[in-house]
Structures are given as structure tokens and as C-alpha cells.
């Protein structure tokens, strides 16, 4: 058998650009696994999640991050959460499934999404151009997460810091998404 090797080329790999008061980068090796809570088994699932990640499953619209850890747990719906963590290999889902020991359903979402982190004092002004949600610090506090649409593309936005937001959108339209964010920054810079 011939020796074939597969090289990973995620759509925004290595992207990192500064625009003055705003920085935009694609986090490297960010794995995403969805966790669905079985109907009637929510309590057990929540317990398993706490035990697996050391943090509680947050309320809908929030994410929790373990202190000092790089993983975060986003609650996107009554029965849906995403866990995000650094992982270089394509085995994120089995890793999570193993930790949850069958208490929840898991699906690998790593390659479904592209991720961009926008940070800096101009982030909010840039996001006003494409995000229809109210991102005022009083309305969208640190640790808030929401599903929305940006430039006709489905997106998830999480406020990870005072001026830092993590944005997720479909990986197939990553170039359009990047263009939309870059243009918003350029137009407001």
C-alpha cells in the first residue's frame, strides 16, 4: 500500500492581523464538540459535564470557562451545549464522549465552524456593522454567548473579555465571513 499522508488545511489557519485599535485572529487548533442532553437525562448529563470539565453547565446564553483552563462550555439551547478546547488531532469528539461516559450525545463540530477572535477597543464599533444583537456591555456581559446571523451567515458570538469576542461561523463560507469582519473593522478603524 502506498504511503499517503493527509495534511490539514483549515480555512483560516494562521490568520492574524492587526488593524490599529482592533486585532483579528483565527485561534489555532480550536476543537468544538456539541453536547446534546438526553430528554429526561438532563440531570445526569449535567453531573457528567461537571465531572468531565470541572465546571457547571451554564444557563442558556452564557458560557463558563474553567479557571486557568482554555476550554469553555457554551450553553446554546435547553438541550444543546458546545465545548471548545485546544486539540490538534481529529479526535475531539471521542475524547469528549469518553469523558461523558454516555451521559450525553456528542457530535464533532470542529470542522463545521471557523473561528475568529476580535479584540481591542474598536471591536464593538466594528461589530455594530454586522451584528444585529445589542452588544452594549450592560446587555451582553462578559461570558455571554448568542446565536445570530451576520451578513446572511449563521454565527455564534461570545464575549470572552472586556473588548474581546469569539466569533464562529460556517467553515465553508469562512472567506466571506472573514471579509465581512475585516470590512467592518476597516470601515470603522
Amino acid at each position, binding site marked *: 500500500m502506498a504511503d499517503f499522508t493527509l495534511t490539514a488545511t*483549515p480555512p483560516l489557519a494562521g490568520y492574524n492581523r492587526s488593524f490599529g485599535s482592533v486585532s483579528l485572529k483565527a485561534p489555532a487548533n480550536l476543537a468544538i464538540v456539541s453536547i446534546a442532553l438526553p430528554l429526561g437525562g438532563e440531570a445526569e448529563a449535567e453531573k457528567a459535564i461537571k465531572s468531565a470539565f470541572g465546571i457547571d453547565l451554564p444557563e442558556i446564553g452564557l458560557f463558563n470557562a474553567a479557571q486557568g483552563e482554555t476550554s469553555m462550555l457554551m450553553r446554546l439551547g435547553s438541550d444543546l451545549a458546545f465545548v471548545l478546547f485546544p486539540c490538534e488531532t481529529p479526535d475531539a469528539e471521542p475524547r469528549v464522549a469518553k469523558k461523558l461516559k454516555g451521559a450525553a450525545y456528542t457530535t464533532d463540530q470542529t*470542522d*463545521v465552524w471557523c473561528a475568529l477572535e476580535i479584540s481591542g477597543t474598536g471591536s464593538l464599533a466594528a461589530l455594530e456593522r454586522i451584528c444585529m444583537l445589542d452588544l452594549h456591555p450592560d446587555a451582553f456581559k462578559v461570558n455571554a454567548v448568542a446565536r445570530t446571523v451576520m451578513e446572511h451567515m449563521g454565527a455564534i458570538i461570545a464575549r470572552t473579555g472586556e473588548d474581546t469576542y469569539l466569533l464562529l461561523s460556517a467553515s465553508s463560507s469562512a472567506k466571506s*465571513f472573514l471579509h465581512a469582519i475585516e*470590512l467592518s473593522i476597516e*470601515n470603522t478603524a
Partner: protein
Amino acid sequence: MTQINRLGGGLVNQGQTLSFTFNGKQMQGHPGDTLASALLANGQLLVGRSFKYHRPRGIFTAGSEEPNALVHLRSGAHQEPNTRATVAELFDGLTATSQNHRGSLEFDLMATTDLLAPFLSAGFYYKTFMWPRAFWEKLYEPAIRMSAGLGRLSMQEDPDTYDKGYLHCDLLVIGAGPAGLGAALAAARSGARVILADEDFAPGGRLNAETLEIDGMAGRDWAAATIAELAAMDNVRLMTRTTVYGAYDHGTYGALERCTDHLANSGGKPRQILWRIYSKRAVLAAGATERPIAFGNNDRPGIMLAGAVRTYVNRYGVTPGQRMAVFTNNDDGWRTAADLAAKGVEVCAIIDTRDAPAVCDVPGARHIRNAGVVNTVGRKALRAITLTDGQVIPCDGLAVSGGWNPNVHLTCHQRGRPEWNESISAFVPAGDLPPGMAVAGAANGALTLGAALEQGRNVANAQIEDLGFTPSRDTPPRAEDEPHTGAPVWHIAASTKRAWLDLQNDVTVKDVKQSYREGFRSVEHMKRYTTLGMATDQGKTANIPALAIMAECTGKTIPETGTTMFRPPYTPVPLGALAGRARGREFRPYRLTPSHEWAKANGATFVEVGNWLRAQWFVRPGEKGWRDSVDREALQTRQTVGICDVTTLGKIDVQGRDAAAFLNKIYANGFAKLAVGRVRYGIMLREDGICYDDGTTARMSENHYVMTTTTANAVLVYRRMEFARQCLWPDMDVHLISTTDGWAQFAVAGPNSRKLLQKVVDPDHDLSNEGFPFMACGEVTVCGGTPARLFRISFSGEMAFEIAVPARYGNAMMGVLMEAGREFNAVPYGTEALGVMRIEKGHAAGNELDGRTTAYNLGLGRMVSSAKDCIGNTLSRRPEMNLPDAVKLVGFRPVDRTKKLIAGAHFISEGKEATMANDEGWISSVAYSPTLGHSIGLGFIKSGDTRIGEVVRAVSPVHKTEMRVEIVSPHFIDPEGERLRG
């Protein structure tokens, strides 16, 4: 030219000079000027020609209601027509040209139209150009369009950029005049999040134009101080040059911000931004618009609204004329005279329609009581006015005041109807305002300064209290209420000359009366018959006087006569701003397949499929056209092996204890008993029994399924399944998540597909026909451990697999598959060859699932299980959908094999006329089959399955062709399915 009409003072910076040109003539102005104020300062009274009669026209107002002073602003591709000079901020290097004349502005050849006016009254073209009918499009309309109209487009692509955005607030304050500033200040001090938007570049509204005082300060100084306080507050967003143009549902407002229109160069930034403002509450403080009085030849350059004259004098330090007269029916007109006189401008006469004493002392002015203006003299500039008593007063400027109309427009955007207020003879907001909106100040009929301030504050406080804020206890600003009484006078009946109501559309009092005489008496009919209130100003200065005249004609009151409906936008919004950034390549998002880069490097031609760009075919050297490529790809796939990126097919991960039962309800055919490790083809029905999608679902484990949908319906299927899960069967433990983008999936089809995959899939996986038979599925690893999914399914009819790897490896995987396939002469194929092969195999696709066809039509009727409850099976059993002569999916080939079938052609039996009544069906898909060497097609024909071998006519009236075709099995190749099971 020097600025002969420039006075001292105002809010312009006379220490700095700006140069601009009008019709190529060099002129000068100052920062703070509008183009209109600068033109007036330079003595340029004539600025354009009227829409219909090419009458010389000047500047009529000082704001966004301007009907006359429309110009082309800027030049070349940047040129914008119909720009109101009254709101165009002056900048150094501005170029403007006048509109709607042939020859020069001064000597417009089309001015002869005015001589034909007796023949061109309202509605003339409805009556005049009726015959011959063919002339309308070819002759009459082009001729009318050439002679009438507004500005012209540059006919070049707009080089400016535009953007849009979203804002949120507790309170949106629309208008930064006294009421708006008072409202914003009260709300902001309470801690509410406030957006204050004003269309002007200098907020303050009428305070900038008047000499009134607030708290002992000049009004304009109070405005500046208030603006400074608001600007320093974190909870306030001050938006100047921003017009809130529409009130939409749920407190949402549209606003246009003009970011760089006041700059010579946009510096690469968006020229304008279209904002969507989400407000919890809103205060409309849009002020009021002065209305004219109609009298003979009241449209000459030099005749202007009285409030506008005050604006030019007080704000811009400019007088419209050196010898001014004032014509008024109310106290407000007197202030114009007083302010002119205070600036040293000669006021020769104040003509008041009322028989009342002087409102104030105006040095040097004659007070003429109980009188009116009946005519004016001066073609390109006013020279004199004639009064009702016949006396002629020489003057070069006339200020006209007929009272003020509250700007109620936004209160009507959700069909609110204003009501008549007798005390100010104007419509005021009433009835159902847009939810969350309250109105304050002049927009609400509070036409005096003290009342406007107080109302702004009180209304804002009520609004924010409603939201739970506590109003601040600071001392409210105070001002006196200036005299403002008046008696309504709409037109001077003694005038025998044409008296203009709508300056923009050249509609006169006579036109409205004619509309009445000819039966167009509803204001909506009158508007359309006369064209009153149309175009860029939407009749802001014309509508009320016109409907007052209609009321006179009908003998009804004005409120009985009613108003026309105001709709967004309040002022014009450029199409460029509506398009925003969605232009060219970025018109909409595009999706790329994981192997896009490989395809691009290997000669792919791409086709848009929904938002996806898919490889349509791959051109090889020597191929002269697309058919060469497609034929080669299809043949080579059937002969050896072909590879196609099929990632675009929707993939839905279905998990849960009830997943099997759920899928059994979603699909029309049975899924309850699908074994782990197996794939099944399924069809989905709408509730009405129409088949809307098909695809395969693989059972990966006991409670885990992977569904594929068609590319086009991926979102639809997901949405319908979510609806079913959440609303129809919430008691089921089922969880859905899309993985379409997560897996790069490739069809590997052809007799050598297994051999190829055996080189890529890690050797511990058995791909033999026994170990991995047709319709098997499983998790495998490839290339030394990379996780993958393998499905033994076939769209081409060949032995085929689909292999999926995490999308990040997709591009590499395509290269690996091609490399592994080199020894088999493997070929990449695109969507066109995919389509050819599926037609050869007789598989239905989007052309067949067109929203009209049932499983019965598709020849899949037996798949619809009657032994279970699933979406659509009940209504699919309706007798009308199961008639024996229903159309059935069959194959077609031309009797003369050299001919090409045409998709969309309809079937008519031989010997029958090609009419709708004889229509028996249609061809849905056609292709040239390189395997068979002739054109083939799929289509639907009545009782098709029982008519195999019959010859019918395929008629295409669109193409004006017809041919004889033979009805055949839809399975052109391998009808027994031996290849795919091999």
C-alpha cells in the same frame, strides 16, 4: 463673483474661505454654509429649471423639504442627481451643476414648454397621447422623458462605498431642535441609553435659525451647550447628519447617516451608513415645515418661505435679497421682517392677510393690512410684486409664511392617521402611533419655543419612566412662548395667474381644481392625477395647501378631505446605501467545497449551486468545449473510476433513543428496522403528500444516524426536522445538528473504485463485496489513522462509495484519491458529468422534485408506507393524486437519434394539436449520453409506465421546435443494478 448677499454673524466661520463651482462658475463660501446659503451669498438666485414647464426656479427653503433647488453634486462617476442644495454641506472644491435644461440654465431651449402650458394641464398625457397606440412607447414616452424630469445619472458605476449597521437604545430621539434636545437631556440625565439623531450637520434645529432665548442665553448657545453636555455622556450617542427615515415594526427605525458627503474625498471610508435602530421607546421631535401661500407666479427665484429667510439671515449670515418684502397670514412672518431689519436689510413692506395691528415694530417697513399678493414680476429673478389692490411694490426678495405643518410623517408609517387641529390649522399626530413612539414639540403641534422645550422634557420623562428609569430632578430649561397666532389662507383667490402649489412637480391651484372637475376628488386620486406630492420632496410644502383647495372645491372641511398616506422614506435614501456593502463578489456569501483549491489548480470551471461554488467540469488540454470535458469525465468514470466532491449534500447528525422512530416519521418509507452499519434511500413528503427531498440515511450505531439531503434542500430539511422535533413530537429523545461543513465527502465511482479505496483506507477495513456490500456504511480510518466514514452508495449507477474525512483534510484527500487512482486512470468529475450519469441511471433530482410531483408520479409510490404514520402519507392517498392517468417518470429518446432533446418541452400525442388541452406532460432533465451516443431525457407523461415504446411529440413553443420521441425506461444503463452491487 463676490459674496454680495453675505451679512455678518451666523454660525458660519467667515474666517475661512471655501471655493466651489456652480455650472463652472467659481464662487466662495465658508465652513458652516450649505450650498444653498453659499449660492445666495453669491447672488445666485436662479439655480434650476422646473420639472414640467422649465420655469426658472430658485431656492425656496432652508431644509430637507426643498422642492426646487435640486442639483447635480460632484462630477464624473461621483455625480449624484437631485441633491438638495439646502442640505448639501459646503466643502472646498465642491462642484455643482443645475438640472433639467437644454442649453444653459439661463437660456433653456425647453422653456418654450411654458408657452404651451394651456395644453399641458394635469393629466394631459393621459388624454393626449392615446393614439396611435404604438406611438406611446416609441415616441411619446421618450419625448416626454427627454423634456421633463429631474437630474441625470452619471451612468457609471458608483465608486463610493456604503455600509450598514445596527444600534440599540432605550430612547431614540428623532430631531435635535429644542424639543429633541430637551427630551434627550432629560432622558440622558436619568441614565437611559439615548440615541439623538438629527438630519442637520449642526444640531439645534430652529434654535440655530432664530434669535429666541432659553434660560437667558441665545437659543443657539443653549443648543451648543446642551450638545456638549450630551456628547460628554457615555450613555448618549449623538448622530448628526443622520436622517431617521422610517418607523418600522417593534420600535425599529431606519436611519441614514451621511458620513463623508461633506468632505471632498471620502478617504476610502463608507460615504453613507444605513442604520437599523432598535429602540425601546422613541420621541419624535421632527419639528414643523412652513407652508407657502399660493398666488400668481409665486414660483420666481427670490420668493422663499419666511422661516427659511430667517435661517439664511440668522444662521448663515446671508440675505436672499437687498430689498425684501414679507407676505404672511400669521405672527411668525413678522419675525422674519424683524430679523431682516435687525441685520440691516431693507424691508420694504409687510403684507398681512389679516386686518390686525402690527405684531412688532419693523423699521422702514410699510405694514399693508388685509391684503395679499396676486402676481409677481421678473423672469429669472423677482423684481416686483403686485398686491390685491393693484399696487406694485418693487423688491428682489419675498418671504412668504402661510403657517406651519407639524412633521407627522413618521407617526403615519404604520398607518396612523393624523387629526386636524383647528387652533394651528394643521394636522397633528393622533390615533395609533408606531408602538413605543411619542411626539413632542412642533411635530406635535407645540409651535412655540417654551412649549416645545417643556413638551420634549415631559414626553421623554414619561417614556423613560415607563422603562423603569427615574427622571432627573434638575431644573428644566425655560423659554418664553413667542406670538404665533394666524388665520389660515391657502391661496389668493384674486390671482388670475398660475399659482403654484407643488413646485417640484409643477402643479398649480388650477390643476387641483381641474382634478376636482374631472372627478378625481379623493386626495389619493388627486395626487395621482396631478402628480402632486411625488418625487424627492414628497410634497412637504405642497400637500396641505393642495388638499385645502380640494376641500374648498368639494365644500368639505380639510379633516373630511383627509391626507395622503406618508410612507418611508422621509427623505430620499440612495440606492447605493440600500445596497450597502453587498456588491460585486460580496453580493452574498459564497461557500467553498473542501477541495476548492485542488479543483482550481486542476482546471475546474465552477458553477454556483445555491451559495456553493462547485466544480462543473475539469478542462483538459485539447478540449474544445464543455461537452468534451463532460463526456470524457462520464465515460472514464464508467470505464474505470471517477472522483467527485459531494460535500455540498446536506449532512444531519441524528442522535437519541427515539432517533429510529423519529426518522420513521420523517421519511415516507420505513426506517425503523434499518440495521446498524447499513444505509437506506428515503424520500420525504410535505404534509400535502408532495415529495420534497430525497437522500440516504446511514445508521452508524444504535442511536446514531447520519442523514444526507440534497444540496439545495439541506437547510429546508433541517428546518422541517427541527420543527417536527420541537413542535410535533417534543416527547421524543431526538437531537439534530448539521455536520454539512464538517466532513469533506467524495464520491468514488466506477469499476475500479474499490481498488482505489483499498489503497487509501487503512488495511484493517474489509472493503470486499462481502465485507462491505452495497448500502453498507461504517467508520474507518484512512492514510494511517485519520478518522473517516465510508458509505457504499451510488448516484452514478456504478459500483461506488462515498468517503468522508474531517473537512480540514478535504483538499489533501482529493489529491490523495487522485494520486491513488493514477494507476487506474482515475478522473475528477464535476456536477455536469454527475448530472449526465444520474440521468443515464434514471435517478430523480431537483428537476424532478419540483414541488408538484408525488412519489406516485416519480414511480416510487410503493415506497410510501401505509403501515405507519409519517409526514405526508395520509394526504398522499388522496384519490386525485393517484389517478391511473397521472403523469409518471419515464425516459425519453429522440426517434432521430441525431436530434437534441429540449428540457421543458411538452408532450403531445401524434396527430393532436399542440394545445394546453392536449398537453400530456413535460421533459424535466436532458443530457447527451456519451455512453449511448445520443440525447436522452427524463420526464413525466400521463400513464408513462404503461406506454413504454410509444412515440409522442415533444413540442417546445418557446424554442419553436418539435420532434418525435420514444418513451423508454428511465434506466438507460444497467437497469438491473448489477454494476452498483458488483
